[in-house]
């Protein structure tokens, strides 16, 4: 049996103008990344990356996404992410947070990252209900795609 190696890239989407939600769907994100791979690495690069490529998780509120790609196509994707300035029709850029070999490791990192975010912003929220809401929104991790 041959095992297929994947890489999971956790990215943060940083919009040019601050927004609460981005209105970005998975397929828009995937299309944008693949288009840019084709632009910078040509038909060959697209062929390497396309197989096994998937946006596994995309949280509009926390602006964090997890991209899956095959091991040998990882460098094509990760080297091209900083060059993107337009996602769909939103002016934004990618910040690569973490690259892991399993989605569990990626998940662990995101949870740690979100906890740090909560530590910073919990103090600014006044009522307990708002705090609960913020916690719920930030820690929303639904990865069954």
């Amino acid at each position, binding site marked *: 049996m041959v095992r297929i190696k994947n890489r999971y890239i956790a990215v943060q989407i940083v919009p040019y103008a601050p927004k609460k939600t981005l209105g970005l769907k998975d397929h828009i994100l995937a299309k944008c990344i693949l288009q840019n791979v084709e632009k910078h690495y*040509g038909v060959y690069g697209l062929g390497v990356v396309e197989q096994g490529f998937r946006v596994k998780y995309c949280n509009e509120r926390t602006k964090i996404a997890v991209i899956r790609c095959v091991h040998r196509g990882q460098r094509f994707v990760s080297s091209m992410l900083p060059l993107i300035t337009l996602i769909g029709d939103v002016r934004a850029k990618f910040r690569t947070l973490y690259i892991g070999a399993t989605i569990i490791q990626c998940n662990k990192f995101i949870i740690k990252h979100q906890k740090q975010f909560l530590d910073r912003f919990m103090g600014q929220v006044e009522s307990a209900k708002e705090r609960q809401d913020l916690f719920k929104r930030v820690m929303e991790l639904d990865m069954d795609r």
Partner: protein
Amino acid sequence: MTDSQYLDVKLKLRDTETVVLTPGYLSGGILNSLESLFGEIGGRTSLDIVKFSAAERRLILRVPQEFVERARIAVTLIGHYQEVPCHFQVLKTSKKQLDFDDVGL
């Protein structure tokens, strides 16, 4: 120049009457093919036409050693020259400078 390689390439056209053969057009076609196959980052290289013969439809290309594989792929996969179906045949590759009378193919 030890870090570059020479390719002896022959252009085979279906219709030889309607095309204009110039080194500029040829290198443009090869660079276009490189860019569509390997993109803006992967397809950038310095490509020189060292020798060119319009009568024989042959040219000698000089490419850096690390780009030989890509240049050869791009040259092989060209299917049209000035909208005329064609193909390129790589007759010989060498690390030393090539000349037309080396191969009698």
